[in-house]
């Protein structure tokens, strides 16, 4: 294994893991904020109970999101030092702004929210959770500004062999950001919504705390409907932008080796052979790719072979075709998961509106529980498509991924850290899911038993100082 491959594996693993928690944090905190708003406005205790219950789940999730995020920031310097030297001037700024603007806000106000139930007035306490939501929202904006620069570099010039910022405004009005940010945020809101509806469906099936979970389902399904449609529309704009800015990624995600006929058909499934550069056993829908690319049923889409020739002209010799099968299939998995969520959200909203939730068929409720996995599948495959599809570039057109690794870090060191982080993350994942399930089973009215007063002395003593703590 060479350092490049290992650094890539580490980046993929740590980023995918981190991004299980991020969208759920954003989506959950919005729902908690809405519930607490209902409590403050309507004054009904039940909404406070809801906000506290979902808030508990949010906090467990948020903790893992925060600690895995630290690694994300350090990783650029540790594994990708040449990349950091080349783009720090441009890429570092949004990261620093993210910390100053968003992380401080999130961490301070979440502290106030957790510990401030009895110390703050109702309205101030409510403001805290909304500020946490604003913080997560801004955090997403700035980190995506940084990612958008990698996908579509703007607002800089090359000086002394590195990228130097010359237009901050261009960086934050990057067309890529304008399509990427809504798509990611809708995806995050959808994640929170489907986790809440899924858990609520499970509890409703068990007939536990019906009022709380019916109300939770009703609030979340509306967010689910709006966000799942929002994801689809923003995704469509993103695809059109992709055709203009990263045609190679578009061609790879469609498995298009040679420029298509006009109008271009959309391939549903295909058997792709990257070595022979051809596909077999394709199923196609006529004209749909033209619509996806140009919002009209005409126009052809460039193929990878033609683009490869063009890129060789522009950037010199090299292989500019990303891993096609990964890009192609991750795109389709994302769309399938997204489509299924839209259907479930529509039907769920229909049931909720007609107050028929509890009478709904077992099959639908079971499907909603299973659908907890869908947003995670969609988020992950979406990022795989967008990051793998950008290869071989790390900054499109300016720096290849392999040129970005740290020259002074050995493969052994990266292997060690990858194993260490993977082990730590595995434990974290298991513990977190375990705690989630435990909280869900305990339900919103679980009372913490009063702590007994134990008299033992020393945490490192014979009995570890827990002699009287019961299990």
């Amino acid at each position, binding site marked *: 294994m060479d350092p490049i491959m290992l650094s890539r594996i580490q980046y993929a693993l740590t980023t995918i893991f981190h991004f299980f928690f991020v969208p759920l944090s954003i989506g959950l905190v919005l729902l908690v904020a809405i519930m607490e708003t209902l409590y403050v406005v309507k004054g009904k205790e039940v909404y406070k109970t809801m906000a506290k219950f979902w808030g508990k789940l949010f906090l467990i999730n948020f903790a893992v999101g925060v600690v895995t995020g630290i*690694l994300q920031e350090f990783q650029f310097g540790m594994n990708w030092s040449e990349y950091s*030297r080349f783009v720090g001037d441009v890429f*570092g700024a949004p990261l620093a*702004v993210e910390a100053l603007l968003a992380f401080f806000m999130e961490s301070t106000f979440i502290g106030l929210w957790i510990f401030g139930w009895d110390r703050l007035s109702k309205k101030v306490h409510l403001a805290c959770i909304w500020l946490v939501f604003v913080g997560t929202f801004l955090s997403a904006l700035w980190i995506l500004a940084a990612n958008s620069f990698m996908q579509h570099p703007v607002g800089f010039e090359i000086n002394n062999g590195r990228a*130097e*910022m010359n237009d901050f405004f261009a960086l934050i009005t990057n067309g890529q950001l304008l399509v990427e940010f809504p798509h990611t945020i809708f995806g995050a809101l959808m994640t929170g919504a489907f986790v809440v509806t899924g858990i609520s469906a499970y509890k409703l099936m068990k007939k536990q705390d019906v009022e709380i979970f019916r109300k939770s389902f009703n609030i979340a399904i509306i967010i689910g409907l709006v966000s799942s449609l929002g994801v689809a529309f923003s995704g469509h704009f993103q695809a059109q932008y992709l055709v203009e800015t990263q045609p190679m990624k578009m061609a790879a995600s469609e498995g298009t080796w040679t420029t298509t006929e006009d109008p271009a058909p959309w391939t549903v499934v295909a058997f792709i052979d990257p070595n022979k550069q051809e596909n077999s056993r394709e199923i196609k829908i006529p004209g749909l790719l033209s619509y996806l690319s140009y919002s009209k049923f005409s126009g052809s889409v460039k193929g990878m072979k033609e683009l490869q020739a063009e890129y060789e002209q522009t950037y010199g010799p090299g292989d500019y075709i990303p891993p096609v099968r990964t890009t192609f299939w991750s795109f389709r998995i994302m769309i399938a998961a997204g489509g299924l969520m839209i259907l479930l959200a529509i039907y769920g909203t229909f049931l909720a509106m007609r107050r028929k939730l509890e009478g709904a068929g077992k099959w639908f409720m079971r499907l909603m529980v299973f659908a907890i996995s869908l947003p995670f599948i969609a988020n992950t495959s979406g990022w795989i498509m967008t990051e793998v599809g950008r290869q071989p570039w790390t900054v499109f057109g300016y720096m290849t991924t392999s040129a970005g690794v740290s020259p002074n870090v050995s493969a052994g060191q990266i292997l060690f850290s990858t194993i260490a982080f993977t082990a730590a993350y595995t434990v974290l994942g298991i513990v977190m899911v375990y705690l989630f399930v435990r909280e869900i089973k305990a339900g919103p009215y679980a009372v913490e038993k009063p702590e007994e007063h134990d008299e033992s002395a020393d*945490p490192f003593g014979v009995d570890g100082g827990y002699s009287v703590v*019961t299990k």
Partner: protein
Amino acid sequence: MLSLSELWFLLIAVLFVGFFFLEGFDFGVGMSTAMIGKTDRERRTLINSIGPFWDGNEVWLITAGGAMFAAFPHWYATLFSGFYLPLVVVLLALIGRGVAFEFRSKMRHERWRKTWDIIIIVSSALLPFLFGVVFATLMKGLPIDAQMQLRPGFLDIVNPYTVVGGLSVTLLCLVHGLLFASLRTVGDLRERALNLAQKLMLPLAAILAIYAVMTYFMTDVFAVRGWALWIMVVLGAASLGLAAYFVRQKREAWAFGMTGAVIAIAFASVFIGLFPRVMVSSMGSAFDLTVYNASSGAYSLKVMTIVACTLLPFVLGYQIWSYYIFRKRLNDHHHLEY
């Protein structure tokens, strides 16, 4: 007049000083659970005393890292890739510690709580130690070559000077944390925190003195910044003396302020001694990373300056407000969240 890159050096120094002042007592409180928390309830009280704050305090480090990345890409790249293995340990400790606070009291199960307690104690001791080691090596010098690449050997990072530096920071954080704990608790727990702080004053003074002497002989910072550093040493010694006096008087608020001053003076001295270098190369001063050869372009720094000057007052404002909200001591009747 400061140039922009000099200003950012100052800002990053401020961020690190803020980080060690604030997160320093979080580390100390984490360590203190092993020493003064006799019962589970007491350990919980200690953890809850920093509960609302520790995450916000940690952001000072994240911001310092982001600011280094943006303002001094070469410093960030050389330091983070060169200190690969220590940083892996730092990250694992930060990860473990962060979730331990959140998870620890979620279950009333002996082994569960004990495991998270040990993670809190070990990581709270390990982190200040490793940071102390890293900052000591920055002053002592590292084999940085002409390409700004750093491939340190084990002895470059771990040697008597850096170990003393690490121990100094750890002990300083422990005393600082004990005083913070005594500020937010009552009765026995407060007494125990104050007593232990008082006992540790002499060892702390001793190790800081040893470290100052070693710094004089093993680095060039006194030669480069003579009188300014001597002033810092005198100020530091005075603050430490006052801290000892106030601890004996059982006036923990003033004592805590003084240990905070010692931390601020110690880390400010590191940056004063380094300036205008950000990393000293042991392979010749031509290869030093400096404020001038490691920084970003003027435009980027200007934008960042505007953003930072706009946002910092707000950040400081609401962080101070959160300390004001949770100024009351925790007693036996309080509901504990963590």
